[in-house]
């Protein structure tokens, strides 16, 4: 199964505040990189218990409503209704054609029409999966996309003029404009699941199956009915609607506590039939409870290890666990607020952002704050996660390696009196190339407030290190911590449209975790003007053009052009991006390499080995 994280955008919301916690200085014990292999003869059967931390799913339907942002719902539903395009192929971030529902996807010459041929797979009740199921899912979304949690303004299905189904296995999707096929396949169609029209096209539990979806009003009624059913946790495991699946598993048990269990879908048509007889997700209230359980040698088979506990790895290995590092598909950053008038003059000049970036000792932070389990943060694309996306600039360490001397030189060259471990002041106001810059008066101190999400010792250590290293060039950072949700609630997106918004005046720089990527890490939404996750309001016509080229153009070099430009222009200050450390029973095979979009969960390919049984 793949687990993309469109909903789970901010690290602390789902992962980092719970997964990244206390750690002390020094190197952690070495772990695998997701490629270790368990040897032994494959066994059929067995139960795997996966530890969940903190949150639990609360909705069961492949298209949750816009008011539900619980990212764990994807984890629950993806094994039942995989998406048309399966993201992640082994450890690669590419599309997995074997596991995807389509056998071919052809784009017209103008990149406006997609012809999709579906594989001759079947639903769990034996009914073939056809183009009618595609049309059914499309019709529901088309009529209700404003209430669809995964809808991104302007994209699917709003950008579809019509869907044709010339035969049972062929779908033709006519788009309103040309797209880069790679972008559209990776970032859009990885969110679209087919739905069983023969079982779900009705407006009440006792109603008859019809073709209600073919009119907008009918589609709204069907949508409302399915949404209502999808919210009833007490019937998740028993509702006949949810018994019709096309994924490798069926839901056998569900408790409102977050405990749930999969059993194999015996009619699964995909290439990898589950070998396990049961997969259980069991909730843990806290990292400590999870660690105690792992150490006491109980039945938890798979878990994500809190980074604060990496020193427990030898003890866990003695308890029969293997360990693998799983890079996070995202980018961590310090976010500058370009629209707070109090600080905008000090974040808009590129040279100031460059100076700050030169002063962030990312290598040291990786080792000291994250015990070695983090991407170095060389630029907008993490080098540990998507090797095919890395430009030579990023591979070489990015444009701004730690270099206090260069930072000091930049500041002096722009009219600042540098006071190491003090506070710099502007001595040459003005807008010339050697002046401080627009809006910066003589004597203005070079100081910022860094708002950060509390709750993670790793973040605390990282930010303390940044305060210290920025101080070497006289850039004064003061820290202000807030609980993650308070931070999110009080800091809205700041850009030309929102300005003046009250939520833009309360923060200057912000550090809250990471932004997750879709399959194609092209920065759309993050760095383009008015992008939905461009919280700080960075705006550059050149960046917009380069991102557009990755979405709508067809040049294969467009991505690297964008990537290098973003790395150099610093719409954000790049920070190390914490990885996940994954522990699993030594006799459980198939766990690695882990899918970068799954948060490591692909139980359909897991199996126990005989040697260890």
């Amino acid at each position, binding site marked *: 199964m793949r687990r993309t994280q469109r*909903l789970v*955008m*901010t690290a602390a*919301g789902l992962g980092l505040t719970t997964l990244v916690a206390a750690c002390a200085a020094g190197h952690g014990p070495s772990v695998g990189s997701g490629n270790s292999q368990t040897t032994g003869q494959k066994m059929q059967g067995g139960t795997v218990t996966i*530890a*969940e931390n*903190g949150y639990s799913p*609360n*909705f069961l339907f492949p298209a949750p409503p*816009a*008011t*539900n*942002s*619980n990212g764990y719902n994807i984890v629950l539903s993806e094994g039942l209704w995989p998406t048309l395009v399966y993201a992640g192929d082994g450890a690669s971030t590419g599309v997995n054609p074997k596991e995807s529902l389509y056998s071919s996807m052809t784009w017209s010459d103008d990149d406006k029409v997609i012809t999709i041929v579906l594989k001759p797979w079947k639903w769990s009740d034996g009914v073939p999966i056809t183009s009618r199921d595609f049309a059914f899912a499309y019709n529901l979304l088309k009529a209700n996309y*404003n*209430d669809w949690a995964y809808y991104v*303004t302007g994209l699917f299905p709003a950008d579809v003029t019509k869907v044709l189904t010339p035969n049972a296995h062929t779908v033709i999707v006519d788009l309103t404009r040309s797209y880069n096929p790679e972008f559209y396949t990776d970032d859009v169609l990885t969110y679209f699941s087919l739905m069983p029209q023969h079982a779900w096209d009705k407006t009440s539990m006792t109603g008859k199956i019809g073709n209600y979806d073919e009119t907008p009003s009918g589609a709204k009624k069907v949508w409302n009915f399915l949404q209502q059913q999808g*919210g009833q*946790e007490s019937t998740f495991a028993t509702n006949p609607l949810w018994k019709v699946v096309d994924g490798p598993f069926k839901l056998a*048990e569900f*408790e*409102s*506590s*977050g*405990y749930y269990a999969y059993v194999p879908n015996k009619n699964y048509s995909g290439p990898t039939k589950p070998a396990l007889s049961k997969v259980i*997700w*069991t*909730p*843990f*209230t*806290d990292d*400590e*409870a*999870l660690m*105690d*359980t792992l*150490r*006491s*040698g*109980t039945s938890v088979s798979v878990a994500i290890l809190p980074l604060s506990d990496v020193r427990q790895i030898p003890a866990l290995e003695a308890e029969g666990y293997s360990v693998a590092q799983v890079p996070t598909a995202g980018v961590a950053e310090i976010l500058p607020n370009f629209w707070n008038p109090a600080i905008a003059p000090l974040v808009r000049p590129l040279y100031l952002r460059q100076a700050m970036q030169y002063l962030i000792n990312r290598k040291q932070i990786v080792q000291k704050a994250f015990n070695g389990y983090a991407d170095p943060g060389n630029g907008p694309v993490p080098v540990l996660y998507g090797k095919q996306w890395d430009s030579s600039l990023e591979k070489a360490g990015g444009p701004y390696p730690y270099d206090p001397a260069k930072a000091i030189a930049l500041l002096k060259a722009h009219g600042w009196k540098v006071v190491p471990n003090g506070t710099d002041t502007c001595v040459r106001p003005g807008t010339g190339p050697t002046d401080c810059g627009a809006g910066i008066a003589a004597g203005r101190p070079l100081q910022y407030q860094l708002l950060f999400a509390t709750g993670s010792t790793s973040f605390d250590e990282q930010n303390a290190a940044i305060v210290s290293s920025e101080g070497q060039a006289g850039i004064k950072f003061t820290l202000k911590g807030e*609980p*993650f*949700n*308070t931070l*999110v*609630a*009080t*800091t*809205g*997106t700041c850009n030309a449209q929102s300005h003046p918004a009250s*939520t833009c005046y309360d923060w200057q720089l912000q550090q*809250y975790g990471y932004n997750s990527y879709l399959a194609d890490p092209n920065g759309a*939404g993050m760095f383009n003007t008015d992008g*939905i*996750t461009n*919280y700080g309001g960075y705006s550059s016509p050149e960046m917009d053009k380069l991102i557009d080229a990755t979405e709508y153009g067809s040049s294969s070099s467009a991505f690297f052009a964008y990537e290098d430009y973003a790395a150099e222009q610093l719409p954000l200050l790049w920070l190390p991006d914490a990885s996940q450390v994954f522990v699993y029973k030594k006799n459980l095979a198939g766990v690695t390499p882990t899918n970068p979009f799954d948060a490591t969960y692909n139980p359909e390919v897991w199996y126990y080995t005989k040697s260890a049984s």
Partner: protein
Amino acid sequence: MTWYLVRRIGQSIAVVIGVMILTFILVHFEPGSTARAVLGQKASPARIALFDNTYGLNRSLPVQFWLYCDNVLHGNFGISYVYGQPVSTLIAQRLPRDAVLLGLSTLLALLIGVPMGLYQAIHHGTLRDDVVAGTWFTLYSAPDFMEALLLIAIFCVHFQWLQAAFPGGITSVGGLFADPSAMVLPVVVLSINSVAGFSQYMRSSAIEELAQDYIRTARAKGLRERLILTRHLLRNALLPIVTILGLSLPNIVAGAVIAEAIFNFPGMGLLFWSSALQHDFPVLLGATLIIGVATVVGNLLADITYGVLDPRIRHAIA
């Protein structure tokens, strides 16, 4: 007595209404947008507007409060923004489990603390008194999370005799006992602090009672010491304990965050904590109301029990 009860119940209702108003105002002073806290930074203005409309957050505060009160009076505490479930369901799932866990730990603490306090009172001023007091004060002063981790290290990790945590998926009280070994440490850890409290209150009270004339009279009449202690002293010395028990009722309802976190026990404490962090107002309001009710009921029960145990008080209020 009846009039006293009516008056006390009336006061209790007024307190609960006050708690409702105060809590409602306070939670709405929490900074920032609820919709943004729940949906995340990526939420578009349209999604935020939809959320606010769905949950009535775009209405004025007095209207929201009026609707909240109306719903509560009809047994509806609202829907959790985060869990997407009725608040009453979330509380109903957790409250009985907390009541059992904290009830058992309180019972254990009473069973140890009361005799311990009596023992200390009888041996007041001796080395035995000092040893017992010293032992319990040492345990009392140690943080409960440290005691929990220590006991887990010994009994779960080293000897592997007990379960370190409750298995996931417990949804009923019966589920707590599916593996009784998982109950042992949480009950023990939660009772340790209470034992010290109960024993010291009991000790002080018993020392005071032992100096009373009725004890001297009983002894002078030749009554056996055991009968004096159990029949005369115990009943009178228990009065302070009744007060503590009454006041501990809200604790039983509110859960124990640290113990819940360490022992994987999804109870009211963690629900309340996570709801506060996530701006989940309906849950916060529902849980606060329940705790407020438990507080006034606990006090009421303590007052009534006082009257039952001590005829002087009963006659005074009559």
